[in-house]
């Protein structure tokens, strides 16, 4: 009963204290608002959140890009028709296209025209090559329904029966390699992210404890003037939550700006070789909603961690100075 009464008094005082703090916005805060340790903590939190946000964004980008590669390739297969004596290439290509388009699970088929084929071979053969004079294979690109793909073996068999010079390439070897590579990249990125997050957590915890050590006297004074542990812990928790939010938001927003700037640069320089190379790898270089949500989650986590560490430190310090038995202590 005594415990319950004390608990109710504790709650009442917290509510009154909170209400008073709302009513008296100009009252000096119990925890000093700005000092060197506080500013250093905010800076450390901003830097660590920035690095962690870059990692979150990077992993998100790699994951999305790898997924996109996999989807693009699994939605497309090609049929190669090799030149041969007496083969009418155009007729053969049209036959392949017709067979493909009539096969269930195929959503479209198109013959790669000479200009496109020329561009594809440009790195090896140079510009202005007349393909008719060279025994160059031609391609038919077949779009497939990735949810209900065709029977590749049957399709390949039918193509070989009607056009013996054709060869179906369903990219499965490529896909399996790319999937493996994508998974490895995401796994490695996740590992790096885990390390960065652990480093962030440890840095934030120790920096908060360092900043708290300068406030030990305030904790003791509040304690010995009769403040309840919950009141003291709440005061520090509120103060450090604010510091954590400022630092984490600064780092997180800066990281998001970096991604937005690079994205905007690649968008506005699509014609240049550098941007083309980046676009080839990462598309629009956008980290997507998942990446932004991850950064926001990181900001909230870091700020919460800072507040909880300060609360834990206060509680621990109070336990050290409160009714300690010298033998136990």
């Amino acid at each position, binding site marked *: 009963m005594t415990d319950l009464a004390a608990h109710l008094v*504790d709650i009442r005082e917290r509510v009154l*204290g909170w209400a008073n703090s709302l009513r008296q916005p100009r009252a000096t805060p119990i925890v000093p608002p700005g000092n060197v340790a506080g500013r250093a903590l905010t800076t450390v939190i901003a830097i660590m959140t920035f690095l962690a946000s870059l990692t979150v964004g990077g992993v998100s980008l790699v994951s999305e890009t790898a997924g996109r590669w996999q989807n693009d390739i699994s939605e497309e297969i090609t049929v190669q028709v090799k030149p041969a004596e007496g083969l009418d290439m155009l007729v053969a290509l049209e036959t392949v296209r017709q067979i493909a388009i009539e096969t269930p699970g195929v959503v479209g088929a198109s013959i790669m025209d000479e200009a496109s084929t020329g561009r594809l071979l440009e790195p090896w053969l140079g510009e202005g090559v007349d393909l008719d004079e060279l025994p160059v294979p031609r391609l038919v690109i077949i779009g497939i329904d990735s949810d209900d793909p065709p029977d590749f073996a049957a399709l390949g068999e039918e193509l070989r029966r009607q056009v013996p010079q054709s060869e179906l390439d369903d990219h499965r070897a490529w896909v399996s390699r790319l999937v493996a590579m994508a998974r490895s990249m995401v796994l490695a990125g996740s590992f790096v992210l885990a390390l960065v997050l652990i480093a962030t957590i440890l840095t934030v915890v120790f920096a908060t404890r360092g900043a708290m050590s300068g406030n030990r006297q305030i904790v003791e*004074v509040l304690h010995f003037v009769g403040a309840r542990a919950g009141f003291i812990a709440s005061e520090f928790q509120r103060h450090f939550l604010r510091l954590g939010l400022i630092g984490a938001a600064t780092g997180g927003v800066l990281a998001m700006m970096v991604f937005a700037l690079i994205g905007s640069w690649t968008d506005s320089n699509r014609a240049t070789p550098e941007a083309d190379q980046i676009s080839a790898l990462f598309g629009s270089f956008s980290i997507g909603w998942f990446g932004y949500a991850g950064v926001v989650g990181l900001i909230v986590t870091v700020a919460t961690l800072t507040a909880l560490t300060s609360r834990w430190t206060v509680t621990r310090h109070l336990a050290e100075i409160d009714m300690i038995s*010298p033998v136990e202590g």
Partner: protein
Amino acid sequence: MHRREMAKVFRHCRVVSMGRTEIGPLVERERGSGLIRFENVGLRYDMGPEVLRDLTFEIRRQSFQFLTGPSGAGKTSLLRMLFLALKPTRGLITVLGRDVATLTRRDLPSIRRRIGVVFQDFRLLDHMTTYENVALPLRVRGKEEATYRQDVVDLIKWVGLGERINALPVVLSGGEKQRAAIARALIDQPDILLADEPTGNVDAPLARRLLRLFLELNRSGTAVVIATHDLGLMDQVEARRLVLSDGRLTIYD
């Protein structure tokens, strides 16, 4: 300040802090009874020898006493036990009728609010003005400033800091800090005031002034324990002396 004015300040504070209907009966019922009682109390740190041995004494309501002894005799340890910051390794301590061995952490703040403490190093919060430091015990209880503002101002004037009410501790002299610390210890109208070397950082005239302040406070009903090794200070008052020596306590009533 005259006793009448001081009594007015404290009568006002007491009504504000404890509720008008409780005061009369409570004071009458407990007048003269023991506030703090030690029975065969011993204290040791870790596995070392006992630094305090077989302490048996009582701090009674409205009493005034000095706690003295040579350096290292254990005055600060005893004070820490008196304001519930340290548990004894043996013996029984009763504070305001409660056995401290049975107290939970949740019980401590309400009991501690009835014990005012003046630390030797003042322990004022540097970012707060004199007014805010003195009002701190009431603020942490969640009281509205309007209900205590005048009491705090009156008390600050009573300790002679009326002109320094908005000053930060960094610009206060040692004596002013000490008086601010005393005011903070008194604002919640404690039953007992514990002062650790309150004149240790001030000159002789100010020490006498502080002593008068403690005596006036005592006359208004608060029990006072002053830990000091200043013989000159003690000689100015005929008061009970608790003398610690070699870990044992001798009482001169």
